[in-house]
C-alpha cells in the first residue's frame, strides 16, 4: 500500500464546483466537506445528478475546484496531482481503454508506463475474473461488464492505498457483483481506503461502514449507515384489524402523527418505533395485518433537509 496513514486518505473542505451546460451555470457541488480516514470505506450515495460523479472527478484530478481544498493522502489538488495519483486507483465515468488492443495489452501499456513490469498484469486479470479466453481479444469486442472488470483491474494496478469507484457494478452480473464485493472487502481489510459512489444504498451497505448522502450538490447527512437507518423516520403503511378511525385515535393519543386513509393509516416511523406502534395497538385489542415501510431510505434522506 502507498498511504501515509497519519493523514486522511481524502480530505475535502468547502468544495464548490460549477460548470456550464448549454449556456446555463450548473452548481454541481456546493460547500462540500468530509474526510475519509486511512483504512475507512465510505459510500457516496445520492440520486442521479446529485453531484457524485462531479465530486469523484475533482478527487481524481479530472476537474479543478472553483473554491475549497482537496487533499489526497496529504497532497493538495491540483498542484500535487502527480504525487497524489501514485496512491490512487480510479474508476470514474467509464473505463478508458484502447479498443484496438487486447485486455492484456491495455493493462500492460499502463503497467509499463508506471514501471510495474508484466507480472501484476496477469495476476490482476486473474483477480478481476475476466475469462482467460478474452485476455488476448481486442477490447472493442468486450461487453460492458467485461470492460468494467478491466477498468477495475486498471484501478487496482499498483495496489493503490485509496480507491475511487463510480458505480462500479454497472453492467456486471450478479456473480460479478459478489466478486467485486470480495475484492473491495479485501482492499479495506488490507488497510486501504475506499470511496464508493452509488445510487443504491443496499449495494454499498455490506462494504462501507460510513455513508455520505449527497443531493443537489450538497452533503445531506453523514455517518454510519446503520445509525442513519435507525434514526431516520420512513413513511409506514399500517393496516389495523379493527376500525381505522379508532386505531388512528389511539395512536394520536399516544403522541404519533397519523395520516388516516379509508383503508389504512400512514405514519413516519424509525424501525424501533414501528415495533412500539404494534404494541400500543395490541394493548387496545387491535391487531395489525400489515405494517411496512413504503418509502426508500435514500428518498427520505434526500428529502429531509428540503423540508
Amino acid at each position, binding site marked *: 500500500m502507498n498511504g501515509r496513514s497519519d493523514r486522511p486518505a481524502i480530505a475535502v473542505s468547502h468544495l464548490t464546483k460549477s460548470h456550464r451546460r448549454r449556456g446555463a451555470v450548473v452548481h454541481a457541488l456546493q460547500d462540500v466537506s468530509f474526510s475519509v480516514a486511512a483504512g475507512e470505506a465510505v459510500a457516496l450515495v445520492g440520486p442521479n445528478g446529485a453531484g457524485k460523479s462531479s465530486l469523484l472527478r475533482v478527487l481524481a484530478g*479530472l476537474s479543478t475546484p472553483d473554491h475549497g481544498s482537496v487533499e489526497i493522502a496529504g497532497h493538495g489538488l491540483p498542484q500535487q496531482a502527480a504525487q497524489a495519483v501514485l496512491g490512487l486507483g480510479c474508476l*470514474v465515468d467509464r473505463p478508458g481503454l484502447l479498443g*484496438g488492443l487486447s485486455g492484456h495489452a491495455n493493462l500492460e501499456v499502463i503497467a509499463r508506463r508506471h514501471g510495474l513490469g508484466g507480472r501484476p498484469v496477469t495476476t490482476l486479470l486473474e483477480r478481476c475474473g475476466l475469462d482467460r479466453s478474452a485476455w488476448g481479444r481486442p477490447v472493442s469486442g468486450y461487453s460492458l461488464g467485461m470492460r468494467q472488470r478491466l477498468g477495475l483491474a486498471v484501478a487496482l494496478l499498483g495496489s493503490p492505498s485509496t480507491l475511487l469507484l463510480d458505480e462500479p457494478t454497472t453492467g456486471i452480473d450478479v456473480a460479478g457483483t459478489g466478486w467485486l464485493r470480495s475484492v473491495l472487502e479485501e482492499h479495506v481489510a488490507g488497510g486501504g481506503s475506499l470511496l464508493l459512489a452509488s445510487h443504491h444504498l443496499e449495494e454499498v451497505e455490506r462494504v462501507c461502514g460510513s455513508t455520505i448522502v449527497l443531493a443537489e450538490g450538497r452533503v445531506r447527512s453523514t455517518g454510519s449507515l446503520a445509525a442513519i437507518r435507525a434514526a431516520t423516520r420512513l413513511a409506514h403503511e399500517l393496516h389495523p384489524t379493527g376500525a381505522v378511525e379508532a386505531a388512528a385515535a389511539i395512536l394520536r393519543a399516544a403522541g404519533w402523527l397519523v395520516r388516516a386513509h379509508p383503508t389504512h393509516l400512514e405514519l413516519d416511523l424509525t424501525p424501533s418505533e414501528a415495533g412500539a406502534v404494534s404494541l400500543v395497538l395490541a394493548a387496545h385489542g387491535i391487531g395489525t395485518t400489515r405494517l411496512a415501510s413504503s418509502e426508500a431510505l435514500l428518498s427520505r434522506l434526500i428529502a429531509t433537509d428540503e423540508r
Partner: protein
Amino acid sequence: MKHRPSLAALVAAEWTRVRCRPVVGRLPLLLGAATGGSAALLFAGGIDLHAAQQLDAVSGTVAMALVVLSFGIGAATVQDTFTSGTAATDHALVGRRRAELVAQQVGAAAWLAVLGLAVQLGLATGFVLGHAAQRGAAISAGAWQHAVVLAMPRTVAAAALAGGLGASTVQLTRSAPAALGALATCLLVLDGLVATLAPAAVGLILPDHLFALGKGSTTGLAAADWSVTSSSVAAVLGVVAVAGVAALVEGARDLP
C-alpha cells in the same frame, strides 16, 4: 506500487496508442499499396526516372497527400482520447496533464514519421520495380538515391510535423472535424486569399510550409517566394508554437 512515469514512458504509451489507429496499424498493407501504386503509376504513366523534375513531382504529390493524412491521423488519435475516456483514465493515473499532452503530440509525430518512412520506401521500391518493368533494366543509381536519400527525410519530417500539428489542433479545439475544417479552410480559402490580399502574411499559413517541406519545393504554393529552407524552418517553428500553446491551453482546462 506505481512509480511516477518519465516523459519517455508517456511517449512510449502514446506510441502504442497511435499504432492502434486503423490506418497506421496496417502499415505493411500501406507499404504494399505505396509500392504497387507507384510501380503501376510509373509503368502506365511512362514517367522518366532520369528526368528529375518528373520524379520530384511524383514524390512531392505523395508527400503532400501524406501531410494531410498525417494531420488527420494525429487529429483523430487525440479526438479518440477524449471520446473514449482514455484521456481521463490516463490523467487519473499519471496526474501530469501538460506532460501527457506533450507526450500525445510527440507520440503521434513519432509514429507518423514511421508512416512517412514506409510510404516513401514503398514509393522508392515502386520506382525500381516500375522501371524494371518498363525498361527491362535496373533503375539508375542516381534516380534511386534521389528518391531515397533526398525525398525520404523530407517526407518523414513533414509527416511527423503534420501529425504533431493535427494532435495539437485537436487539443486546442477538442474537435477533429473542427481541426480538419481549419486545415481545409487554410488550404482552400486562406491560401489564395492571403497570397492575393496580404502577401506579407503568407508566412502564417502553416500547412503551406509543411507542404513545402514535404515536396522540397515551394512552387505552386502561396509561399512561392520563400526558399525551401526558410519554409522548412517556419514549419518546424510553427508546429512547435502551436503545440506549446495547445499544451498550455488544454492543460488548464477540465477534462471532458
